[in-house]
C-alpha cells in the first residue's frame, strides 16, 4: 500500500472529522469508499483479490464518476468477527464513508451488518454469502455483488440428477456457509428424488480429511458434493485424489472448491465439476478484457473474488453515473443501485428486491488447470431471500 497516500488520507479524514460541522459542498468531496477486507490471516488472499478488483473497476470507469474522486480507506478485518463492529463503526463514524465494501467472512459480515444496517452509508458485500445478509437481516442500504450461499449450490442438485446420481454424500465444514450450501443442494436434489446418504460436517477449520474420505469410500455413493474453500479446498481435493476416490466416485462441489486453488491442487483437481456464478473461461467481451487487464495490473490471474470486488466497483460507478455524481441523497442512491444493470465479467447481473444479484450459474469442469464452462444449469437465478421483508 502507498503509505504516504494513506497518511494523507488519514490526515484528511482527521481534518474532515474535526471540520465536520462546516461540511463542504458535497459534490467537491471525494467519494469515500471504505474497504473492510482481510489482508492478513487465513483469508488474506481473498481480501487482496477483492480489493484489486474494486480498485480496477473504479479506475476503469473513472469517467462515469462525473469528475468525483475516489478515496479508499482500507481496514484489515483479520477475519476476526469480534473486531468487525468496531472497524465498521470506524468507517461509519470516523471516516464517514459513503460506501463500505466488505467482508469475505460471514461472521464478520454479521458484525458489520449489526452496525451498518439502516445507517447513512451503503454496504456492499463482495463475498460473504451468509443467507441472512439478504434474508432476515436485509436492509435498504445493504447490497451484495457476490452470491447467496443458496445460489451456487442449488443448481447442482439438478445437475446431479441429470447425471443419474441417486445416492450422494455431502460434506463441508461445520459453519454457516457450509451448512447453507449443503442445504441448498439437498433442497433441489431430494426434490427430484435423490437421496443424501450421509451428511458429514467437519469442524472448522480442521483439514484432516483422511478419516472422512475413508468412510465415504466404504459407503461408495454415486457422487460426493462438498463445500470447501481456500486452503481446505486444496487439501480436500488432494486427499480425495491421494486416497483413490477420484476416478471412482465423481466429485461435485460449490464452485469455491476450485477457485484460486487450482495451481496448488495441480492434477488432482482435473475433472472436478462445480457450479458457480463465474468461470475463468467465460467467453464474453467484458470477461476477456477484464482478465487481460487484471493480469497486466496485478501480475496474476483474476479469480472469482476479484470479479466480485470488480462488480462492487461497477455497482458504485453505475449508481454514481445514474445520479450525475451527486450521491448525497441516500434514498435516490439506493434506488439507482437497485435498478443497476451491470455488465460483469460473469455476464449480466441485476439485483433482486433483497439486493442480491440475479445471475447465471455455470457448471464448470476442471480441464488442464482451468475451470471450463460446460453448461448453464440455471440462468438469471434469483435467491429466494427467505425472511426478507423489503
Amino acid at each position, binding site marked *: 500500500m502507498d503509505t504516504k497516500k*494513506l497518511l494523507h488520507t488519514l490526515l484528511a479524514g482527521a481534518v474532515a*472529522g474535526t471540520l465536520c460541522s462546516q461540511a463542504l459542498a458535497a459534490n467537491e468531496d471525494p467519494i469515500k469508499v471504505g474497504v473492510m477486507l482481510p489482508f492478513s490471516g487465513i483469508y488474506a488472499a481473498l481480501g487482496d483479490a477483492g480489493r484489486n478488483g474494486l480498485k480496477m473497476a473504479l479506475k476503469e470507469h473513472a469517467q462515469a464518476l462525473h469528475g468525483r474522486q475516489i478515496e479508499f480507506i482500507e481496514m484489515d478485518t483479520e477475519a476476526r468477527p469480534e473486531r468487525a463492529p468496531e472497524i465498521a463503526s*470506524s468507517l461509519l*463514524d470516523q471516516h464517514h464513508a459513503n460506501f463500505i465494501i466488505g467482508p469475505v467472512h460471514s*461472521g464478520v459480515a454479521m458484525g458489520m451488518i449489526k452496525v451498518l444496517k439502516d445507517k447513512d452509508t451503503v454496504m456492499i458485500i463482495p463475498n460473504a454469502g*451468509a443467507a441472512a445478509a439478504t434474508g432476515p437481516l436485509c436492509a435498504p442500504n445493504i447490497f451484495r455483488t457476490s452470491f447467496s450461499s443458496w445460489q451456487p449450490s442449488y443448481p447442482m442438485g439438478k445437475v446431479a440428477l441429470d447425471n443419474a446420481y441417486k445416492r450422494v454424500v455431502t460434506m463441508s465444514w461445520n459453519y*454457516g456457509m457450509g451448512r447453507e450450501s449443503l442445504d441448498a443442494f439437498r433442497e433441489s436434489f431430494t426434490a427430484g428424488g435423490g437421496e443424501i446418504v450421509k451428511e458429514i460436517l467437519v469442524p472448522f477449520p480442521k483439514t484432516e480429511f483422511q478419516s472422512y474420505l475413508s468412510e465415504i469410500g466404504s459407503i461408495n455413493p454415486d457422487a460426493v458434493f462438498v463445500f470447501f474453500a481456500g486452503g481446505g479446498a486444496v487439501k480436500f481435493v488432494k486427499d480425495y485424489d491421494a486416497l483413490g476416490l477420484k476416478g471412482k466416485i465423481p466429485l461435485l462441489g460449490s464452485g469455491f472448491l476450485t477457485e484460486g486453488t487450482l495451481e496448488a491442487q495441480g492434477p488432482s483437481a482435473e475433472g472436478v465439476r462445480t457450479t458457480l456464478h463465474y468461470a475463468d473461461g467465460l467467453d464474453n467481451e467484458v470477461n476477456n478484457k477484464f482478465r487481460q487487464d487484471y493480469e497486466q495490473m496485478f501480475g496474476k490471474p483474476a479469480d472469482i473474488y476479484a470479479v466480485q470486488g470488480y462488480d462492487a466497483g461497477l455497482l458504485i460507478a453505475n449508481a454514481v453515473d445514474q445520479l450525475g455524481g451527486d450521491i448525497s441523497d441516500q434514498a435516490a442512491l439506493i434506488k439507482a443501485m437497485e435498478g443497476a444493470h451491470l455488465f460483469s465479467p460473469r455476464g449480466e447481473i441485476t439485483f433482486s428486491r433483497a439486493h442480491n444479484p440475479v445471475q447465471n450459474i455455470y457448471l464448470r469442469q476442471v480441464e488442464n488447470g482451468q475451470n471450463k464452462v460446460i453448461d448453464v444449469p440455471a440462468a438469471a437465478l434469483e435467491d429466494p431471500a427467505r425472511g426478507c421483508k423489503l
Partner: protein
Amino acid sequence: MLFNKRTERYFVWVFFPLALLMPLFLEQNTFYVSKLTTVMIFAIFVMSLDYLVGRCGLITLGHAMFYGLGGYIFVIIAPEYEAVNFWVYTFYICVIAALVALIIGFLVLRTSGIYMIMITLAFAQMAFYYFSDSIDFGGNDGVFIYVKPDTSIFGISLFDLDNPIHFYYLCLLSLFNTLFFFRLVIRSRFGRVIDSIHENPGRTTALGYNVFVFRLMAYTMASALGAYAGYLFTLQYGFVNPSMLAWTTSGSALVMSILGGMGSIYGAILGTLVYEGLHYVLEHLTEHWLLFMGALIILMVILFKNGIAGYLEKLLEKRS
C-alpha cells in the same frame, strides 16, 4: 493506602481524569469514543486475567472462555425482544459464570504450571467448539442482540446503552470499579492469603490454610469479572461471536497483561492501551503491521523486565 505504589497513584490521577474528559473533546467523532470503550472493556478482562496470573500465580490460557460466556449467557437467558434490567442481568451473568468457574476451577486447579495452562485451554476450546458448532446460537456467524438492557434503578435510568457516550461512561465506571475492587481484594485479608500462596504454597498449607479453596475463590472471582467484561463487550455492538472464546483472545489478553507488568493490575490497563494503540497506529501506517507489531513486542520483552509498569516504577525510583 489503597493505591500503594507511587506509579499507580500517578496513573490513576492521570488516566481517569483524562478518560473522564475525553468525550468532550471527541464529541464530533463518536468512533474514538467507541474505540476507547472497547479498549476499556478489554482492559477489564485483562485486569481479571492479570489478577489470576500475576497475583495468584495461576496461569490460564482459557480465560477467554469466560469473556465469551459473558455474552452467550446473556443470549441464552435474556428474552430476545424485551429490554431487561442491566444490573439484574449483570448479577445473573456474574453468578452463572462464577458457578461455571467453580466447576471448572475444581477440576483445573489440581494441576499447575504448564499443565494448568493446557487444561484451561482444553476447557476453553471445548466451549469454543460448542458454540461454534451449535446451530441454536448462530454457530460460527454469531448472534445478534436486538434489544439492549435498560439501566434503571428504582425507575431512574442512569445510562442509555444505545448512546455511545453513555456507554463509554458506564465502561469507564466499570473499569475504575474493577481496579478499585482488585485493589481492595489485594489489600484484604483474603489478599494476604493469596499473596502467601503465590509466594510459598507449601508453607501456607503448613500454616493450616486450604490452598485449593483460596485458589478456587480467586479463580471464580476473576472469571466472573471476565464474564462481566464479555457482557459489556456484547452489549456495545449487540453482537456475540464464538471468536470471543478463541484461544487467540486469551493469548492477546495474556500478551497485554505481561506487557503491562504482571500482577500490578493497573499495568493491565497500561498494557491494553499500549497494545491496542500500537495496533491501531501500525495498522493505519502499513499493511504489514504484523511485522512491526511482532518486532515491537520482542523488543519490549527484552528491554522491560517487568513490563511497562515495572519500567515506570524503576524510572521513578531512579529519579528520587
